[in-house]
């Protein structure tokens, strides 16, 4: 441990107000620094839909919460103040940090309480992450009331650093005619459907706005970081007539760009896209979410197969820019070797259950030694999709129904479609402790579709 204190930056260095589609501001430098900031969760009365005000919960008074921007190597100190009338936590979804800073339900913060989340952003972890509450049984309601925000971690050697950047935080919500968030009594017919499907809203938001406008110049290439912060909705994103390169997911960039026509972004997942502005000056296009059938037939919503508009891509009147040459190689992703795996965990997902059990905070469902490489086999045995999230460690999907994954990517959450078996490989690096794994359909999580992995400090795996 060095006794030299790294320079301390002001709160504002990292707490960037989420101006809609604010571009990348700071160019990442390979310096070590400490970023210290305060996040306060409080009740707030905000205008979430036009013409109405809503009793909401907000981080620092805004929805989505402030976008947190860190650099690899940063030491981060976040002072959390819980001014809510109920217990909460902040979970830094996808960040590889100590268990004590994970904001899991094992470390609840009572009303009026505070908690300091202290962690270091390790090299190689640049990517798009997000944060949200994770209290036992109450995550869905607190996120629905407005508690979610994005995290952007930058690398000093980002191959796409020169490309203009936009952040799109996708979410959905449902409101009563009074303007209040529609959280149904748990015995109502709609609540039973929510419990089954996960709560979906009819109002779709991008950065807290309904069908906002994003401008692009003809010929320009933009890097879109997209976060799906909804409780259950799976977005199937398509931008007609445009060349889109899929360049990254939960844990950052792929090894090389992948041309796509559309991407499926499950709840909790993130994506990085390069969008090439091939439209003519003054024209416009619409980013849509297309139908995706993740539902069990009994409770499939009536309008599930209607495409929905998300945002308008407006071309400026400026003359087209010269074509931009994009890198064909982004970075190297280390291979996790299946030959070194020392155990396979079989995880059976059914409706609301993991391995036929509901969550017990006093039970450990899986154990693995620190440093070990292990395979997780996730079997969905029921007729609806479940998104599976492992805390603390990024993993690599190996195969789906025996078909090898086409390219390597760091993931912390993966959608497991109905009646599909998927395998991933993970190495428990750096941080022992108890880690949650769960369905990220928040209603399912809150009803106990969650288990605990204990990474034990004794070292029995390979070095």
């Amino acid at each position, binding site marked *: 441990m060095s006794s030299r204190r790294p320079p301390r930056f002001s709160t504002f260095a990292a707490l960037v107000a989420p101006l809609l589609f604010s571009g990348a501001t700071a160019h990442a430098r390979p310096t070590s620094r400490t970023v210290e900031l305060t996040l306060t969760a409080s009740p707030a009365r905000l205008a979430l839909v036009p013409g109405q005000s809503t009793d909401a919960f907000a981080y620092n008074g805004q929805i989505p919460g402030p976008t947190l921007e860190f650099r690899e190597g940063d030491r981060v100190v976040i002072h959390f103040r819980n001014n809510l009338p109920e217990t909460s936590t902040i979970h830094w979804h996808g960040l590889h940090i100590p268990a004590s800073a994970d904001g899991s339900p094992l470390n609840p913060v009572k009303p009026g309480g505070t908690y300091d989340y202290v962690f270091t952003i390790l090299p190689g972890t640049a990517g798009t992450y997000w944060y949200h509450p994770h209290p036992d049984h109450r995550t869905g309601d607190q996120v629905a009331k407005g508690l979610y925000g994005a995290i952007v971690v930058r690398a000093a050697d980002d191959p796409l650093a020169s490309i203009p950047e936009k952040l799109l935080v996708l979410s959905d919500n449902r409101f009563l005619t009074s303007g209040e968030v529609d959280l149904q009594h748990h015995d109502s017919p709609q609540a039973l459907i929510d419990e089954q499907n996960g709560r979906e809203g009819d109002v779709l938001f991008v950065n807290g706005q309904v069908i906002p406008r994003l401008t692009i110049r003809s010929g320009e290439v933009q890097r879109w970081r997209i976060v799906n912060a909804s409780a259950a909705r799976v977005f199937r994103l398509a931008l007609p007539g445009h060349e889109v390169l899929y360049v990254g997911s939960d844990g950052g960039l792929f090894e090389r760009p992948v041309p796509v026509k559309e991407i499926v972004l499950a709840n909790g997942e993130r994506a990085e896209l390069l969008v090439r502005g091939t439209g003519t000056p003054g024209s416009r296009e619409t980013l849509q979410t297309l139908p995706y059938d993740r539902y069990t037939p*009994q409770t499939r919503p009536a309008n599930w197969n209607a495409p929905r508009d998300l945002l308008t891509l407006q071309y400026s009147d400026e003359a087209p820019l010269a074509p931009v040459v994009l890198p064909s190689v982004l970075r190297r992703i280390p291979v996790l070797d299946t030959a070194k795996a*020392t155990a396979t*965990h079989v995880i059976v997902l059914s409706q609301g259950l993991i391995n*036929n*059990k509901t969550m017990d905070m006093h039970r*450990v469902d899986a*154990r693995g030694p620190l440093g070990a490489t292990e395979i997780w086999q996730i*079997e969905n045995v*029921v007729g609806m999709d479940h998104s599976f999230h492992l805390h603390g460690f990024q993993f690599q999907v190996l195969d789906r129904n025996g078909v090898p994954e086409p390219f390597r990517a760091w993931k912390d959450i993966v959608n497991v479609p109905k009646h599909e078996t998927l395998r991933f490989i993970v190495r428990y690096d750096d941080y022992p402790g108890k880690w949650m794994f769960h369905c990220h359909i928040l209603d399912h999580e809150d009803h106990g579709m969650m288990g605990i992995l204990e990474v034990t400090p004794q070292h029995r795996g390979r070095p």
Partner: protein
Amino acid sequence: MRVSSRAPYRIVGLAGSLALSVFLIAAWTRTASAPPVGNVVRGRSIVLSHGCGDCHGGFANPAAKGWLAGVMDPSQEFKIGPCYITPGAQPCFTTRPRNLTPDNATGIGRFTDRQLFNALRFGLRPGETPDVEITSQTPGKGNFPVHPHYLAPPMPWMSWRNMTDQELWDIAAYLKRGLKPVVNKVADSEGPPDFWASEFVKPMYGTYPAAAFPTANEKQP
């Protein structure tokens, strides 16, 4: 959860205090009390004599292709609702007998004997009901789910539930360990999701256990 090459459960070391260890031991004993083990041969006899194969495949011939492997042909599907009588009438739900063989992905391989027992005794869908002993029929009590999810009609569990406990364990044993797994993915049944919970159905099928003998329709011989 199956973890290879490792002891399945360790209490020592978790117990930070006497109270905690007492709690953990209590929890361990509860989960460790294994449900009764059924008899595969008796289970086969019950399955044959109760017409399970009439819907789930193979009729009464265990040598038939598709024996208990679920819908393989649209003629095995059911139409539930007025369309059963008048084609095209609404509402109309299609239900499909499931694959009862112990294939992990498409059958009942990942459900425990107790989940199958609970399906036959209480009509609870095994994929939506935890592996726990149910001691009540009141939602929220005795491990009965607060919001029960039932098997799709016309699965006649309301009659089959009157079998003895041992007979239900025998059926579970036969399905889990007396059959070879068959890979046959059956599309999920549509609603009506709460058919068996409806007030329309309940009086028709009475209570469990059934009313004491003799009722007004019956007499002592």
